[in-house]
């Protein structure tokens, strides 16, 4: 059998990433094995929980490599965990396909490290592009002070100039905060024309509700971190009209027929629903892509770590959940800005914004 390791933050503060990722990975392995495995070999997946704790991630990576002797690792879920295990896999020479979004992971390019999650930069570009079109030039940003938010904030600040956008107020909130009226009151006191909030559930839902509570009329933008039905459920009425960049997974059936990803997306959504009784989201998609990429690499070459790495690097036009991947020796991230679409929440559902 071919042993593949996985490191996901199944519990802890980033379990919203780790859980769907683990579920997806396990589902995929079952499916693959049902279909006869890879080149006739069964796939074995060994998942360890990192709890979004760098120390635990490193220990688990060590165990995967030294004890379980895996040929490749998918995950970890967060940028922090990924950065922590990079030295371990680089030294051991085991390919790692991270499911985290941080740019640092693949820039500069590291020999053994790939990733599937779309860079935040792409999501930011999508929003700014739209703002520019709508002639909105003064915005307020409200980001969560964890890995996701701080990397989003970095990109928002970094790219604003390029799009001629001015950040009037730059506020943050804690990952577990339950009330953001103070930050919003401050924003209300400024001259911002729109608010961009960067975070993952449940914070943005609180923000949406607080905006409504304060009677603010500014258009509200969110990140891809909340592109799941859960957000709409939590924010309730306050979610109406919010615009956010998202992977195509939430609007799979609204996509044009010729979209290369459509088949994979519909397939994934349906499958996930069947297995776990909830909607699949694009976080799970990262794990889907990672597994499929490794599967492709093994099929094209062999199941030794070095061969997997070499073949991964040669991946071309793989249409997955997150987008269409194209790795090269210079690019281990593999996606372009069309990995994201903009969607708007209407009538408790997603509408593709053209």
């Amino acid at each position, binding site marked *: 059998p071919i042993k593949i390791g996985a490191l996901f933050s199944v519990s802890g503060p980033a379990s919203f990433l780790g859980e769907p990722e683990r579920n997806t990975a396990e589902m995929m392995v079952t499916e693959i094995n049902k279909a006869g495995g890879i080149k006739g070999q069964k796939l074995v997946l060994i998942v360890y*929980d990192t709890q979004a*704790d760098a120390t635990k991630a*490193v220990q688990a990576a060590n165990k995967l490599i030294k004890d379980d002797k895996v040929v490749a690792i998918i995950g970890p879920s967060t*940028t922090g965990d990924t*950065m*922590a295990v990079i030295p371990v896999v680089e030294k051991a020479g085991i390919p790692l396909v991270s499911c985290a979004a941080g740019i640092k992971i693949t820039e500069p390019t590291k020999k053994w490290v790939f990733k599937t999650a779309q860079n935040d930069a792409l999501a930011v570009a999508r929003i700014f592009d739209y703002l520019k079109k709508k002639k909105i030039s003064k915005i307020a940003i409200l980001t969560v*002070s*964890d*890995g996701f938010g701080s990397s989003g904030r970095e990109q928002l600040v970094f790219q604003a100039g390029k799009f001629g956008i001015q950040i009037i107020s730059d506020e943050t909130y804690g990952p577990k905060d339950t009330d953001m009226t103070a930050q919003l009151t401050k924003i209300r006191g400024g001259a911002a024309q729109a608010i961009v909030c960067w975070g993952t559930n449940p914070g943005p839902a609180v923000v949406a509700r607080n905006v409504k509570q304060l009677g603010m009329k500014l258009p509200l933008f969110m990140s891809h971190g909340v592109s799941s039905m859960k957000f709409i459920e939590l924010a309730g009425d306050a979610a109406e009209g919010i615009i956010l960049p998202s992977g195509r997974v939430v609007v799979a059936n609204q996509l044009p027929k010729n979209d290369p990803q459509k088949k994979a997306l519909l397939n994934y959504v349906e499958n996930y629903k069947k297995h776990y009784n909830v909607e699949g989201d694009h976080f799970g998609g990262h794990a889907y892509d990672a597994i499929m990429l490794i599967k492709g690499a093994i099929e094209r070459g062999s199941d030794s770590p070095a061969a997997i790495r070499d073949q991964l690097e040669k991946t071309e036009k793989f249409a997955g959940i997150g987008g269409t991947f194209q790795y090269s020796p210079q690019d281990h991230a593999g996606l372009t800005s069309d990995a994201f679409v903009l969607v708007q929440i209407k009538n408790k559902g997603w509408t593709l914004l053209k």
Partner: protein
Amino acid sequence: MTKEKREILIFFIFTLAVLITPFFLQGSYFLNVLVFIGINTMLAVGLNLLLGYAGQISLGHAAFFGLGAYISGILTTRFGLDPWFALVIAAVANGALAFVIGFPILKLKGHYLAMATLGFGIIMFIIFNETVAVTGGPSGLSGIPNIQISSLIFDNDLRNYYLIWIITLLVMLFSINLSHSRIGRALRAIADSEVAARVLGVNARVLKVQIFTVSAVISAIAGSLYAHTMTFISPASFGFNFSIELVTMVIIGGLGSIYGSFLGAAILTILPEFLRVLRDFDIIVYGLLLIIMTMYMPGGLISGLTRIAEFIVGKIKSRGARHA
């Protein structure tokens, strides 16, 4: 055998065990776990000086650990300092900080002390998180160099094991020495009755601050070593939860016992490894074990084990006596 001789013998045996353990673990990942046990032992011993001897609680010790790690990490990555040099600076800076905040903080008693140290921990955690330009913020600081002695680079588990454990053993030895000295006695006296200690001329205020400082310095050394073995650090490792975990290590191990702190650190570090197979149930079992261990060994593992050992020895002796 006198008490002192027994102490020396125990320490000798312990050292020996530590030194030969790697030979049984060639290439196993468990060596890596033992490295972390070493670091945690250092931390627990340091906290035990404060909590177990002086009776002063700290719910913010992870902050000193983190500060040590960050000072070391930043100095080596951004200013290219030698890791050893960075370690010394981290220790000194931490000591200075602890000394300065020690005076007002340790004037507080009981809950107020608990809350002040907790607040300190939270403040430091926020600083690690928010000063993105310096610390790299929530996504961490990577590329920290390994420690090096001339051409010997400590870049694998075996080397790190010896590096960390030799320092840990030194820290343990110092703490044992300290506990049998006038300072150790004065600290325990303060814990029992501060007024009486003061009447006998023990300067409780200064002594508490001193031990707080020593404890912070030990934590900083552990933090620095952690940074250089992991080569990556992020704030998540230095939060409130870890402060609590440290206190748990000390108490589960046994207040005021250096070997107890080792046991506590070892158990709490290894436990998650074994619980991994339980997947999502691990947290439940972990909580349950914590409760059960404390329920049945309220004096800590060390006194529990001593009792069990005495019981067995007693059994053997009585059996021997019957035979004789």
